[in-house]
């Protein structure tokens, strides 16, 4: 299977010292990879490196076969991102938010109109299309962010704590939606979270702690390795 995202020996340092060191991870197309780690583990720093908001001090990032450092344009064109903090333009309508994101990808005209209509339909936002993003509920704002991140049909979707601030039903609905997209459209998903209940046994898990990968494999394999019956117990053992 083709790798949607490949990270090799990635490192980053803040003035105070290393934030990430020797990070290796792979997200396959059509697979859900959970980037698991406690707060402060370096998940958001890693997301900032994968989206070129930061420049790494070492290592490489390859998105859909395009090296991010050497060919940022083609690499970023294959990337969709949902950040922890909302990045919607709250004063613009739902439709305008989608159209703006597509314009930043160089997509306009009829192609953009079709992509917007499909995104609205897929995420159940058609009725809200003309409303400002500010008027949406927290759950629907997140849906819009995911819709926007996927509107240009990327090969990989990165979600950084995308369910933060949502109530349990909205959280589950959003996650189920992303899983369906991952399965049906073959998008590789990197799902950064600190919540164990968002992980399924078949998911690939990369466990990050203090800026380093502590363990990697499917959730089921990690649980088996440490003899745990659930991911929470496995996490406890693996991060000792």
């Amino acid at each position, binding site marked *: 299977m083709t790798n949607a995202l490949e990270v090799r020996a990635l490192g980053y340092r803040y003035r105070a010292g290393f934030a990430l060191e020797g990070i290796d991870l792979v997200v396959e197309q059509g697979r859900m990879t959970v980037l698991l780690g406690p707060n402060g583990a370096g998940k958001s720093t890693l997301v900032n490196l994968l989206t*070129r908001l930061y420049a790494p001090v070492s290592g490489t990032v390859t998105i859909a076969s395009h090296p991010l450092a050497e060919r940022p344009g083609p690499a970023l064109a294959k*990337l969709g991102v949902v950040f922890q903090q909302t*990045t919607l333009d709250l004063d613009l309508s739902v439709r*305008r938010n989608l159209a703006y994101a597509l*314009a930043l*990808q160089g997509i*306009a005209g009829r192609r953009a109109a079709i992509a917007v209509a499909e995104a609205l339909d897929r995420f159940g936002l058609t009725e809200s299309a003309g409303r400002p993003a500010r008027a949406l509920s927290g759950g629907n704002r997140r849906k819009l962010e995911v819709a*926007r991140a996927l509107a240009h049909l990327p090969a990989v979707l990165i979600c950084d704590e995308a369910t933060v601030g949502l109530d349990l039903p909205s959280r589950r609905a959003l996650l189920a939606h992303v899983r369906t997209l991952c399965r049906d459209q073959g998008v590789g998903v990197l799902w950064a979270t600190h919540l164990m209940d968002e992980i399924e046994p078949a998911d690939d898990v990369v466990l990050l702690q203090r800026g380093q990968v502590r363990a990697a494999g499917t959730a089921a394999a990690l649980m088996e390795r440490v003899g745990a019956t659930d991911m929470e117990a496995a996490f406890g053992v693996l991060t000792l």
Partner: protein
Amino acid sequence: MTYIVALWGILIRESLRFLSQRERLLSALLRPMLWLVIFASGFRAALGVAITPPYETYITYEVYILPGLIGMVQLFNGMQTSLSMVYDRETGSMRALLVSPLPRWWLLFCKLLAGALVSLVQVYAFLLAALAFGVAVPAWGYLAAAPVLLLTGLMLGAAGLFLSSVIRQLENFAGVMNFVIFPAFFLSSALYPLWKIAESNPLLAELAGWNPFTQAVEAIRFALYLQADWPALAGVAGSLLAFAALAVWGYDPARGLIRRKVME
């Protein structure tokens, strides 16, 4: 084509934001009108202006400060661009822009152009209001000044863009008022000719002469009277390149200042 689509998208976005902020246009008009109607009327008798290029006859003080007030509109708009970039950064919407596959310099240029076009709208609205109060320039001057106004709008917008990469938080914007806008405005030829400053303080006049805002004001002043002040235009173009280069550097994730503070 991709570049043009993104440019168009950003122009539409900035236009919609501008139109949704009616108070922004109102304050952009009210500020210079207060100076024109109240301040200039008060100082009309105290500050006489001798015949000096591009003027061919004695002019009233209101006529003299008109280009300076146009510069003020663009200066405030440039700082508004800076403010909105800092706001975008704090609210997170800047990230949506910066993760676009297009080069960062192009994205910044799009923002810059959008800001300059917004400032043009503000300037012509102000000129219309000034005309209503009887402060006019030659009819063709309104048209001839447009390209110069675009250039000065780009230069002051680029200064704002660079500042936005330096300012850490929205709260620090008050400092911009004190340390950038006021010195740039008062240490310029916006309110008084340089030769008048030189009479009382030659050093200040020298400093004011190097001020990019002075060069913007003089370029506008001459353009409104269908003349070109080439040294001022060259100064504005040079400042535009310098500020734009600093802004691109500031927003570079590997080298710039943004890396240290934006995305945490």
